[in-house]
């Protein structure tokens, strides 16, 4: 079967589709997040054992880690749509990138915030210049930069393309930045290698965490689509279909396009 993807690349077709998907994703997200919270709070061990016995507050992991994952994934999505937009010049891709950015920034912020509140009881400090924390902070700056640049430019087309270029430059730089922070001393990098402890984690915790991640993921879809619909309406004000839509709601009068005439004389 061959689907005409370009049909869906038009804002006019995508607008109602997004409208139908929003409640679907929204409800699923809420359900999954509630389930994950329930599972995380009631079905997991009361305290973690091992060398560093963590008290009840380890449960913040069910928000913290999924949020951190989402923040990185969403940046990839953002840069991906930006690249598609720049290459194929499709308006919808830029709009998608814009719609995703605030959600990504929010997850980054949540990861930082929950991390800080976790750090207080477990490390005795809100903040430490641990490589991972620093990288997350820089990711936050990249999101903020993207949004700041976009909103600093009046002309929406220039704003889209400039912000998209920035997102791509950011994506190229990101691995280098992360790596330089993780390995500030190239003489003995191997010693600093950080190992993820996810493999050894208890399965209940894993279930709760993965469910929460999925919930966050759907939440990202829902919020991005809501924002996307707003953006589409604003950008396409002039087009016939939006005018019909607005007219149905008894909306405002739209300007007519200017006419032009010409005469030739010798």
């Amino acid at each position, binding site marked *: 079967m061959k689907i005409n993807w370009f049909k869906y690349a038009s804002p006019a077709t995508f607008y109602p589709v997004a409208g139908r998907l929003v409640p679907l994703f929204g409800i699923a997200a809420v359900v999954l997040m509630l389930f994950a919270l329930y599972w995380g709070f009631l079905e997991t061990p009361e305290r973690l054992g091992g060398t560093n016995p963590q008290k009840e507050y380890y449960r913040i992991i069910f928000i913290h880690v999924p949020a951190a994952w989402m923040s990185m994934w969403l940046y990839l999505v953002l840069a991906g749509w930006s690249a598609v937009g720049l290459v194929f010049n499709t308006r919808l891709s830029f709009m998608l990138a814009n719609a995703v950015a605030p959600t990504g920034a929010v997850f980054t912020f949540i990861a930082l915030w929950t991390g800080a509140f976790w750090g207080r009881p477990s490390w005795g400090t809100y903040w430490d210049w641990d490589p991972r924390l620093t990288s997350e902070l820089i990711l936050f*700056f990249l999101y903020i930069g993207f949004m*700041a*640049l976009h909103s600093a430019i009046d002309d929406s087309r220039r704003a889209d393309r400039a912000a998209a270029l*920035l997102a791509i430059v950011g994506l190229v*730089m990101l691995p*280098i*930045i992360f*790596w330089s922070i993780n390995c*500030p001393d190239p003489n003995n990098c191997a010693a600093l290698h950080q190992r993820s402890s996810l493999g050894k984690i208890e399965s209940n915790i894993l279930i709760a965490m993965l469910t929460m991640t999925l919930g966050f993921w759907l939440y990202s879809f829902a919020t991005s689509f809501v924002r996307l619909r707003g953006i589409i309406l604003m950008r396409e004000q002039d087009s016939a279909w939006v005018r019909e839509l607005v007219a149905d709601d008894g909306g405002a009068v739209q300007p007519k396009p200017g006419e032009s005439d010409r005469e030739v004389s010798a």
Partner: protein
Amino acid sequence: MLKVFWCILKRDITLAMRRRTDVLTTLFFFIIVVSLFPLGVGSERELLRELGPGVVWVAALLASMLALERLFAADYDDGTLEQMLLAGQPLSLLVLAKVVAHWVLTGLPLVFIAPLMAMQYALDGTAVWVMMASLAVGTPVLSLLGAIGAALTLGLRGGGILLSLLILPLYIPVLVYGAGAVTVSAIQIADTQPYFALLGAFLLAALVLAPPASAAALRISME
């Protein structure tokens, strides 16, 4: 091709020489920022020695960034940039010429003034040489990366500070390895070579990638 490159390079350097203060102010900004810190944090020798490389590099970052704001702005305001876009010459070449001129005027002087700054922070002989070398390799990367940001924020109100928001995070690797090389040079057994290898790799990558990216950004901004 080469003729156009030289023409733009010469033009920018002539312009800067007409207003010699421009060149000097970047330098003085650097000196002032470096000298402010001891006022803010106190003047214990040990503390300062530890701080030295970081402060000098952060100051270099800030100085380079501030000067960048004007990289395209003047040309944009008077319409010469528009003319460059329409010149029928590869835009990345023109951009590269402008960046090179910019570095010669604002980055290179920092390299030569660095020993004076190092003195204020009680750094010793080797550290001073390493600092000069790291600045010499690192500051062109700053100029090249910064050009992208300067092109993106062209003509925006509050562009200067927006530029710093966009660019400073991207400067981090250069800061880490630049300052790292100097810090490490104080330890006898440690080797600074990997640091310079990395900085050199950054420079090469930036030389290849940054001009086309800036050119693309300029075309977007001029629309």
